[in-house]
């Protein structure tokens, strides 16, 4: 596993010493596990698998607050038992969005003599999934708080949708940036193709989200 290593900071004493001279703001601070996984430096299959699993978990949990509030509202019109499938649709929607659009970008770029390294693309996609899933995972407690303290099912559903697209947009922009960095000759044409692909993927993501949610919710 090729991860970066970090210096261990001077460790805890039992009391807080306000005059401690061990503080040096110029030293590099230790980095979180999530930041390590988001870095392209750790590039192996097991790390990619961990990224994908964390991404799936985050996206799946994002559907939980809306499902719970519908369940506890006991609103027969709004709640249907199979609404719990909603949790599965978000990871599937996200995966389908990239699976459908990425091969096209690969082919188009190769037409213009830009061949992306498959391993590096897989790594970038795994990091994208993790980035989106991590944001969804981070905001799920906030949505749960609203769901548990008076938020309506519509309100929570809209908030979950907003979180999904917010996380998705940030992840997609980062993926486009990573793919752009992989290009050997960054001509205006190849950069234009990349930008067009990113915009198309965004529209495709929106379309697939509506289709999948329509299939599940209505």
């Amino acid at each position, binding site marked *: 596993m090729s991860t970066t290593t970090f210096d261990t*900071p001077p460790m*805890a004493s039992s009391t807080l010493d306000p005059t*401690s001279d061990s503080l040096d703001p110029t030293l590099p601070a230790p980095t979180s596990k999530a*930041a390590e996984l988001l870095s392209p430096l750790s590039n192996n299959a097991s790390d990619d698998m961990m990224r994908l699993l964390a991404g799936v978990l985050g996206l799946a949990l994002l559907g939980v607050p809306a499902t719970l509030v519908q369940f506890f509202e006991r609103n027969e019109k709004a709640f249907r038992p199979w609404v719990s499938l909603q949790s599965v649709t978000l990871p599937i929607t996200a995966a389908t969005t990239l699976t459908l659009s990425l091969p096209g970008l690969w082919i188009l770029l190769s037409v213009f003599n830009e061949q992306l390294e498959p391993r590096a693309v897989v790594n970038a996609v795994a990091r994208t999934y993790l980035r989106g899933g991590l*944001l969804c995972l*981070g905001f799920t407690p*906030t949505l749960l*708080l609203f769901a548990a*303290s008076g938020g309506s099912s519509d309100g929570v559903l809209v908030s979950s949708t907003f979180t999904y697209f917010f996380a998705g947009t940030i992840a997609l922009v980062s993926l486009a940036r990573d793919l752009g960095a992989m290009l050997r000759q960054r001509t205006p044409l190849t950069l234009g193709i990349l930008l067009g692909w990113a915009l198309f993927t965004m529209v495709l993501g929106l379309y697939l989200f509506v289709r999948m949610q329509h299939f599940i919710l209505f």
Partner: protein
Amino acid sequence: MLTTSLLISSKPQELATRCVHGIELRPLARATLTHVLICTGVFGFVLGSSRGVSQAFASAVKLPLAWIITLSVCAPAFYAITAVFGQGIRLRSLLALLLSATARASLVLFALLPVLWFSVDILQGSATGYHQLTMIASLLYGAAGLAGLGVVVRALQKRASSLPILAGFALTFCLVAGQTAWSLRPFVGRPAETTTPWFRPAESTFLEALMLGSDSARGIYHSSGDYEADGRETGGEY
């Protein structure tokens, strides 16, 4: 205790560096948590004292609780935001940082306690006292929040990605703190009520209440849930 208070209040850079580098986090967390509980507890006691001893004790318990719940709910979001925007602060460092920022904000609240007490004393019995008191308490909270934000700002690296992180922090914190405080209300208690309950039922989100309150302030009253300037329920549309 005094030296720790001085460290929290006057050395935000040192505090932030300690947290980010993970130096002596356990004693720091203990000290900051103690500050949060004591300072906000006393602030809550004075705030609730406008409605009697029972409400004073209720607010003294609920106000620190509101902080702790807010931090617990915000922490995962903050962790994700910092990691995604390239400033991966470790979870334990982040928790210590949030506690330190909250402790600094709590100390500022404690420092502003005489202002609150003075307001409670002169506004008691006034027709619009309830609304004015909640407004003053909100302003004091805003000022304390800025002091807390100072610690977080110093913990972030000086680069462009810090801006969306700060915006994300502020937005998430406002949403979560608002909803938590709304769920744990009342802290002051409506003057029209003879007895004040410890908790009110979960009826809406604070964003809905904010919109309703904004309408009420402009003289637009809705059919239920609105209160006139003296705290009486309107019970109809005006």
